[in-house]
C-alpha cells in the first residue's frame, strides 16, 4: 500500500492522458481536490479490476476503447488501445472495435452496441436494452459493472476534455 501523499503525487491515468507533467499548473490545481484525484483513479482501478466477475478485463477494455473512440477522445482511446495490446488481445479485433467495424462475436456485438448507445444517447436507454444484455448471457452483477464502466468513461472523457482546456489556457498565457 502506498501512502496518501505518495499516491497523490504519482502520475495517474488522467495526468497521463491530458497530459499533465509534474509541476504543471493545471496538475497543481487538480491536487487541490486530492480526494477527487484519488477516487477517480480508485474508480478506474475498480472498473478494470480482475476481481470483477462476469465480464473479462479484455471485454471491459474493448468497451473503453469503443466508448472513447465514439467520444472522439483520442488520448484516452490510445491509452485503452495500449492496455489491450498489453493484455494480448488480437490486433485485428482492437482495430475493428476502435473504428466501429462489426465484430463476429454476438455477445461482444451486443455489449458494444449498448456501449455506443449509452455514450451517445443515454435518454434512449430502456428496459429492452438491459434485457438484451441478459439475453446475451450477462448476469445482473455483470450488467451493473458494464453500466458503471460506460458511465465512468463518460465522466473520464469530460474530465480529460475540461483539464485539456484549462491546460491550453496556461500554455497561451
Amino acid at each position: 500500500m502506498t501512502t496518501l501523499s505518495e499516491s497523490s503525487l504519482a502520475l495517474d491515468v488522467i495526468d497521463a492522458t491530458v497530459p499533465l507533467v509534474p509541476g504543471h499548473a493545471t496538475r497543481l490545481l487538480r491536487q487541490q481536490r486530492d480526494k477527487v484525484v484519488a477516487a477517480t483513479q480508485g474508480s478506474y482501478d475498480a472498473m478494470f479490476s480482475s476481481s470483477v466477475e462476469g465480464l473479462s478485463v479484455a471485454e471491459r477494455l474493448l468497451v473503453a476503447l469503443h466508448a472513447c473512440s465514439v467520444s472522439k477522445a483520442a488520448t484516452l482511446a490510445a491509452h485503452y488501445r495500449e492496455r489491450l495490446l498489453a493484455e494480448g488481445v488480437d490486433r485485428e479485433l482492437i482495430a475493428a472495435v476502435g473504428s466501429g467495424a462489426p465484430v463476429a462475436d454476438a455477445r461482444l456485438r451486443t455489449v458494444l452496441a449498448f456501449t455506443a448507445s449509452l455514450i451517445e444517447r443515454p435518454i434512449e436507454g430502456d428496459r429492452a436494452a438491459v434485457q438484451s444484455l441478459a439475453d446475451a448471457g450477462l448476469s445482473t452483477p455483470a450488467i451493473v459493472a458494464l453500466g458503471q464502466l460506460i458511465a465512468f468513461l463518460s465522466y473520464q472523457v469530460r474530465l480529460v476534455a475540461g483539464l485539456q482546456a484549462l491546460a491550453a489556457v496556461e500554455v497561451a498565457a
Partner: protein
Amino acid sequence: MSSTNAPIRIKGFTNEVLSWKPWLDPVDVASATPAQLAALDEMSPQARSSPYFLVLAHQPEMLLQRSIAFNAIMFAPGGMPRAERELGATVESRVNGCVYCASVHAQRFEQLAKRSDVISQVFEEPASAGTTAREKAIVEFSIRLGAEPGKVSADDVRTLKEVGLSELEILDLIHSVALFAWANRLMLNLGEPVFPGAAASS
C-alpha cells in the same frame, strides 16, 4: 427546507420528489456482504434503503469509489459555491434527459440558493438559461462539456474567467458536470423515474 410554492413542471421536468424503480433486482440488505454495506454507508446514511444504490451495490468496489468521488465533488469546502455545483449537475441532467437526477439537484439548488428562477429557465430552454452573466456562462459551459466534450477549448475557460470564476471554481464545475455525465447514465439505463401518485402502476 421544502418550497411552499407550487411545484415546477416544465417539458417533462419537475422539482418534485420522485421515486426510482430499478429494472434489475437490488441487493437484499439483510444478506449484503460487509463490502456492500461499507460502499452503501460511504454514499449516505439513506443508501441502504435506496433501490438505486442497492442495485449499484452488486459491484461494491465501484460503488465505494464512486461514492467517495460523488461526495468530494459535491460537498468539498471552498471553490465553487455548492449551489452552482448543483446548477451544473441540473443542467447536465436536463441536457441528458435525466428527469430523476434533474429533480433531485433542482431541489438541492433551491435549498442552497433559496430561489428557483434559474431552474425554471433550465427546464424551459437550457441554452438561454441564467439570471446573471456569471450564471449564463456556467450554464453554457455545462451544456458544452456535457453534450460536446471534444469541442471544449481554452476559449470556453477564458469566458468563465471573464465573468469572475477562479481556476478552482472552473475545476469544480468540470468535476460536477462530468460526475453527472456518469450519474445520469446509470439512472437512465438501470431503471426509471416514478412520479408521485403513479407508484402503483406496472
